[in-house]
Structure formats: structure tokens, C-alpha cells
């Protein structure tokens, strides 16, 4: 008997499509001991999820295991007939997934979905199983289990759904739990609760966990062993303590370097990017704020009854006041549903504000007419979260960037406009020939650069960045943040940076406003708010963020 509960040897998984074969997992080996947490960390496309699905043999149909062995409790899972493997799933090895929203069956009551496992593996009768489900719901700290058991998934919040998923996974007390990015889709406060829950249950059930994540801070918090994956291979594997004090592989160092943190303020994240030590001095500009938001409110009516009368309002934004100083970055931070994105759209009048004032250099944006608003569009621009949906897939990159210049008639001359597009591409660090290509030919990070170029094209004074890095890997995020910093230095643009990521705020912003349920509960200088939060919610938020001080490379 080996010392490992799960031992993976030379595992290779390939995806076959009609045109090409893609090796997603390339001869990886690792072992997990009983009761320990083994974190597999890597960026998107590194093959970490495919590894997890390979272990439990739930790969999509296009994928196949071409070599290697997976030994679990001494048995080679790859040689097990499907029938025996089914006995293993849910009982010996369980799995929880990233998306709690879609991972539960919408038309089956959650209690039934949990008891299904018990009936399958433990031969329980329905009443027995129901009793056990109530215990399990209690164990995953769901309030009022006797009510929840008869609910449908859509009646539960994201965190609650993930708890139900955990209850399903733990119902038969498996020896190994595979957790595939279990908290990525959750807000940070919920993430903290779920991580704590998993940790407690692990001790209680004495199971091993294969924890898959992209978040180094989470790894630091939960893992015993760490393995870093890149391009289908494990490049480094060591214990938590060793890994976070002295990582060996260059790639690991790159990952750490790319992490934004308070300590790195004023310095570029990536080497080779121009240094920025201080904010540009604005002598020519007024010291006055470029944008003032007063009591901004956006309500969405709730209609009910026979004649769809408005019976109330969803107060997405409820009296928000903000000032954006010239050449500075104001972060608007909050969890999902806090209304932060609606603030951005309300300022630009992409959604019509219900009340409040938005003043740009003395001009009341909230009440000017269509034509006047059109003129001001050049000064206020926006960069969206999802670089995949923010560009028309049917247009050339050149035309996408040019569209704003043309529509707002910034540069009337066609030739000069073309020239400007090329300049912009260069400024955001893309090849000039990019303008003759289509968005789908670019990666997420490159697309976000194009979006920045598009916003930049009309010489805006303020760019509203709506979670511009949330969909990106941490190394790409570092590039984008460096780029934004560089542009701010050059053009003295102000950013309203909407985000949920505290470490980005700590690194990137000058001022921060914390949003909660449509209102700003606290705002001020970043150092002050993050080190000495006044409001109870801010404190809760900050304490939920997993802490990670990146190791410093000794030259």
C-alpha cells in the first residue's frame, strides 16, 4: 500500500475535435494523502479542471484519457468498469463544481437531490434518507433545514446553493472531495463562510480534498500541499509553507509578482513596464473635481396586479454621492447586487437615473438634452467587464476603434482617423496590423486592450472601468492595470474603477467608496479606509478577504 489516498501517475488527457487534437493534461503526477488538502492552482486553460474531471472520470465526450494511472485506495480507477466507477462516485469520491447556480436540477426539490445519493449508495429508505438530509443541511449550516429541504434551487441564494452542493457531496462521507473552484462564483463574504465550512467538515469527516482554484490567496488559506499547473503540466509542487515563502519555479514567481497589493502601490506589477512613482502633477488643471455625483438614484419599478400598476421600486442605486478628482482613480467596491454597475451606467445615462445630479465640470449631465449629451459623450467613456461581449464580432478591430471617433466627429478627416487608430493600438501595446483583424482572433487580455483603445480614442477625461479585469487571469490583470496606470500618467485621465476585488483597490485606487445595497456606506482615501475601516460592513468585507503577502524575491 502506498502512503497516498489518491495517486495520479503520468496522467494525459486529450481533446479531439474534427480538426485537431489538443493535449489538455500532459503527463502529470501527484499524490494526495488522507485528510490533507491538495491545491491545484493555475490560470485558465492550464488543465486543472480537466485533471479533476479525469480523476472522477466525468470528462466531456470529446475528451479521452490516453495514458497514466489513477490509484485510489489501491484501485486503479482507470481500469475500473463504469459500473464500479459509478459506485465510487458520490460515495468514495465526491465533487463540487464552480457554478452553484446551474449545478442543481431546477425542477427537483433540493432535499430530493441530496437524498438521491443516500438512496443510491446507502440503500436508505425515503424516510431514513430524509432524516439524514435534515442532519446534513444542518451540518452545512443551512438555517431552517426543515423548510429548505422542500425548496427548489432557485429559491436559494448562491451561497446556500453551494452549501446544498456540499451536502450532496458529503452525504456518503467520501474519502476524497474534489472541489473545482467552489467559491469563484461567490461573493467574498460568502466565500469566507464556505471555505470555513469546508475546512470544518474536512476535519469532521476526515477526508482529503483536491482543491482546484486560480486564487493564490485562497490556496494559502486552505492548502496543505500546493501544485502549480501551466499548459497541462505541473511545474512546481511543494508544501504550503515552502511554496509561499520560497517558490522555486519562475512561473510561480510570475504569479506572485502579478498579484496586486497595497505594498506594490506606485510600482508597476510587471517588470519592464514603465515605472510610475507618483501621480502626475496637474498644474494646468483645476483642482476641482471633474465629476460630481450627488444623490444619484436609479429605481426599477415593480409592477403587479391586474393592470401592471407600479407597486414599488427596486432601489438599485439609492442616493449615491461621489466626487472624482482630476487624474485620480476612485474605486467603487461592492459585492454582487450592490448596485455598483448601475451607478456607472447611471452616470453615463445608459440607464436613466431616477433622481440626483451628475455634474461634469459644472455641466449637469443628468438633465441636458440629447444633442448636448452627445457632445459630452467624448468626455465620459466606459470599459466593460466582459471583453467577449463588448465588441461587435462582425466588425474589424479598426472600425470598432474608429466608430466612436466617427460618431462623435472628433477627427473629421478619414486619413487622420486611420492614423489615430494605429497610434491608439500602439499605445495599448498591440500590433498595428491588429486593425484589420476581428475581435475573436484576440485573447481576453488583448480584447480588453482594444476596448481601452476604443474608449481612449475620443480623448475622454473620465473612463468608467466596470470590472475590467474580473474576467481575466491574474497575470493578464496585471498587464491591464499597468496599462491603465501608464495611460493615467500620460493623459491625466480620471478613472471610476468599479470592482469587487479588494487587492486591486488596494494597489490601484486613490480613493475608495464602499457600496452596500445601493448606498455608499463609507468613502475616503484608500490607505485610510482599508487600514482603518469605520463602517461595520467595510470591516466585514475586509476581514473576509483572504490575506496573502506575496513573497519578495531576493535578487
Amino acid at each position, binding site marked *: 500500500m502506498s502512503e497516498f489516498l489518491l495517486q495520479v501517475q503520468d496522467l494525459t488527457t486529450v481533446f479531439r475535435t474534427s480538426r485537431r487534437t489538443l493535449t489538455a493534461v500532459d503527463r502529470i503526477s501527484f499524490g494526495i494523502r488522507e485528510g490533507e488538502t491538495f491545491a491545484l492552482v493555475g490560470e485558465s486553460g492550464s488543465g486543472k479542471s480537466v485533471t479533476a474531471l479525469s480523476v*472522477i472520470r*466525468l470528462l466531456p*465526450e470529446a475528451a479521452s484519457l490516453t495514458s497514466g494511472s489513477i490509484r485510489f485506495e489501491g484501485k486503479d480507477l482507470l481500469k475500473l468498469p463504469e459500473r464500479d466507477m*459509478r*459506485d*465510487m*462516485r*458520490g*460515495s468514495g469520491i*465526491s*465533487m463540487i*463544481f464552480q*457554478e452553484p447556480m*446551474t*449545478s*442543481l*436540477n*431546477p*425542477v*427537483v426539490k433540493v432535499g430530493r*437531490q441530496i437524498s*438521491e*445519493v443516500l438512496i*443510491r*449508495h446507502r440503500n436508505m429508505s425515503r424516510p431514513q434518507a430524509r432524516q439524514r438530509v435534515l442532519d446534513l443541511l444542518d451540518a452545512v449550516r443551512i438555517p431552517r433545514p426543515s423548510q429548505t429541504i422542500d425548496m*427548489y434551487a*432557485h429559491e436559494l441564494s448562491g451561497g446556500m446553493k453551494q452549501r446544498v*452542493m456540499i451536502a*450532496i*457531496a458529503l452525504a456518503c462521507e467520501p474519502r476524497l472531495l474534489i472541489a473545482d473552484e467552489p467559491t469563484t462564483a461567490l461573493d467574498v463574504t460568502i466565500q469566507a463562510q464556505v471555505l470555513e465550512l469546508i475546512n470544518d467538515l474536512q476535519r469532521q469527516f476526515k477526508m482529503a480534498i483536491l482543491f482546484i482554484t486560480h486564487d493564490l490567496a485562497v490556496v494559502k488559506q486552505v492548502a496543505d500541499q500546493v501544485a502549480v499547473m501551466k499548459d497541462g503540466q505541473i511545474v512546481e509542487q511543494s508544501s504550503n509553507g515552502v511554496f509561499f515563502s520560497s517558490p522555486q519555479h519562475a512561473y510561480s514567481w510570475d504569479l506572485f509578482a502579478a498579484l496586486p497589493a497595497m505594498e506594490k502601490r506606485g510600482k508597476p506589477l510587471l517588470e519592464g513596464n514603465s515605472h510610475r512613482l507618483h501621480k502626475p502633477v496637474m498644474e494646468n488643471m483645476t483642482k476641482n473635481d471633474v465629476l460630481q455625483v450627488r444623490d444619484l438614484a436609479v429605481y426599477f419599478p415593480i*409592477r*403587479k*396586479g*391586474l*393592470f*401592471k400598476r407600479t407597486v414599488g421600486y427596486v432601489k438599485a442605486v439609492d442616493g449615491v454621492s461621489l466626487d472624482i478628482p482630476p487624474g485620480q482613480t476612485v474605486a467603487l467596491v461592492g459585492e454582487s447586487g450592490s448596485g455598483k454597475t448601475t451607478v456607472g451606467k447611471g452616470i453615463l445615462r445608459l440607464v436613466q437615473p431616477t433622481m440626483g445630479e451628475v455634474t461634469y465640470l459644472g455641466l449637469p449631465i443628468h438633465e441636458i438634452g440629447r444633442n448636448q449629451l452627445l457632445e459630452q459623450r467624448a468626455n465620459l467613456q466606459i470599459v466593460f467587464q466582459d471583453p467577449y461581449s463588448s465588441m461587435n464580432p462582425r466588425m474589424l478591430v479598426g472600425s470598432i476603434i474608429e466608430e466612436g471617433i466617427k460618431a462623435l466627429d472628433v477627427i473629421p478627416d478619414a486619413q487622420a482617423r486611420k492614423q489615430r487608430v494605429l497610434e491608439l493600438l500602439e499605445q495599448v501595446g498591440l500590433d498595428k496590423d491588429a486593425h484589420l483583424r476581428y475581435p475573436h482572433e484576440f485573447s481576453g487580455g488583448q480584447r480588453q486592450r482594444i476596448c481601452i483603445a476604443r474608449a481612449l480614442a475620443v480623448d475622454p477625461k473620465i473612463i468608467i472601468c466596470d470590472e475590467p479585469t474580473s474576467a481575466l487571469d491574474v497575470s493578464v490583470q496585471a498587464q491591464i492595470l499597468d496599462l491603465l496606470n501608464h495611460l493615467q500618467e500620460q493623459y491625466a485621465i480620471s478613472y471610476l474603477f468599479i470592482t469587487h476585488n479588494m487587492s486591486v483597490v488596494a494597489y490601484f485606487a486613490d480613493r475608495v467608496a464602499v457600496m452596500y445595497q445601493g448606498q455608499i456606506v463609507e468613502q475616503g482615501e484608500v490607505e485610510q479606509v482599508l487600514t482603518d475601516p469605520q463602517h461595520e460592513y467595510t470591516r466585514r468585507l475586509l476581514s473576509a478577504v483572504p490575506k496573502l503577502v506575496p513573497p519578495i524575491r531576493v535578487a
Partner: protein
Amino acid sequence: MIAYIIRRALYAIPILIGVNVITFMLFFVVNTPDDMARMFLGQKHVTEEQIADWKAERGYHHPLFYNDEEDGIDTIRKTIFYTKSLRLFIFDFGRSDSGRDIGFDISQRMWPSLAIAVPQLIIGLLVAITFALLIAFFRATYIDYWAVVICVALMSISSLFYIIGGQYMMGKILRVVPISGFESGLFGVKFLILPVLIGIVGGIGSSTRWYRTIFLEEMNRDYVRTARAKGIAEQTVLFRHVLRNALIPILTGVVVILPLLFMGSLITESFFGIPGLGSYTIDAINRQDFAIVRSMVFLGAFLYIVGLLLTDISYTLVDPRVRFS
């Protein structure tokens, strides 16, 4: 919920008015009753008198909207619009151009239509779902591939062929059940077998293929992966998880046509000599009986709207996610 249903029902009123206006335009404005009379009586050698008689016999002699020869309420009531269109709202279909009471005919003839349409729908649905489930179980294999090819081939065959071929097979070769005719009561079942069977075979290709798409779409969802991760057998996954979700679009798609089953099928009924509403309509079309066609248009629209309403209600019943306020 009740407020919602009432609102939907109220929404049906303007639609029915719209349907009424469209049919009125088609039947009385594009061509005047005079034109109809002329066509009926033959183009040449028609005297004004004959036309007037023809119109008076059928109640087309009133003006369209406003009768200035009458007084009071009758200026409105003695018009074609009132007698022929507005009366439809209280399901007073009036008399056909050949003088029969349409409302009575409809009440008589909808039962044979139902006798064909209901078993055809139910059995067809069961068969198609079963096939689709089987195909989905063997997805991405040769069985799946050829099943889809067969489905496409089946749906490429004209429905006329199914009927003619089926009648020929039964009538000349097998001679097991009668190929046409109708009788009420239990004894009449033998007349139903062939039309029902042909209806099912004719529709099996497209519905199986459609349901297969729905099943495959559901099978790619995350919750199916969750179910597999529980160690549940593939058949159980299919039946307990996939089928339940897939039935929502399938059943609600069926609900919308439920009321229309009363209308029967034009082709099937005329081929098999079923005295239902379908053959009633066909006969009316062939005899150019405008009054009946007009009534059927209104009835069909009404039943469709009822179907829409039922669909909405059935969504709230089968899908726990949908709650109307």
C-alpha cells in the same frame, strides 16, 4: 395568479377584435357581397334581381356598417358588420350560405374530430418521447446518426403520401381495418385505427428529432454532471433529471395546440370520411361557403388564444421557477 389570468384573458379581447376586423375586411370589403353573388350565380346573364334575392336569402342585403334606412338602434344592428361579425363574439355563427345552422353543425362535428385528434396526440407524444429518449441515450453513436437520418427522411415525405400509401396498403393488401368511414360508439373504434396510426407515423419524424434536440440540450447542463457525479446510473439520470426538465418545453408546446384539436385535421378527415370539423371546413372551402369559412376562422383564432392562455398557466404549474405576479 388570478390577476394574471384575468389580465391575459383581457388581452385576448383586442386580438379577437383584430381577427374579426381582418376577416370582415377579407370577406366583405375586398370583395363585396355582390361579387360573391355573381360568382355563385355564374358570371353572365345575372340579373340584379337574382343577386338581390341571393343576398337577401343569406342576410347579405344590409349595408356594411350603417343602415340609414332604419331608425335608432337598428341603424347599427341591421348591418352586415353587426349581424355577421359582431355576433361571432357571442358564438352566434348564424347560418351557412346553404342555410344550415353553423353553431349546431359545429357542436355535432367536433366530437368525431376529437376522437381522431386526441388519441393521435397522446400516442404520438408517447412514442416520440420514447424514441427521442432512446436516441439521446445512444447519443454520438451510429445509432444516433442513423436515427436522425431516418427522422429527416420521414419528415421529408409528404403527409399526402402517408395517407394515400396507408389507405392503399390497408385497402388492397392488408384489409384488416376499414379505410374510411365513421361510426360513433365503441364499435366505431375500428374506423379510427388507420387515421390515428397514419397521423402518428406522419408526425413521428419531426417530433422525435425535435425532442431529441431538447434532450441533448438538457444533457449538456451542469446539473446532469452533478447527477453523474453522484454515481447515478445513466438511465436514472435520463429519467429522473433530464426528462423532467425536457418535459417542460415539450408539454407546454403541446398545451398550445390542445384547444385546436377541436378543429380536426383537414386532410385526414376528408381522406377518411370522418364527419368532423376538418372535413366540414374542407367541404365549405370546396363549396365556397363563405359563412362557414368565416366562422371557422373566428373559432380557430379563439381556440388558439385559449391555447396561449393555457400555456401560460401550465408553465406556472410545471416549472417551479415561474411564478406570475
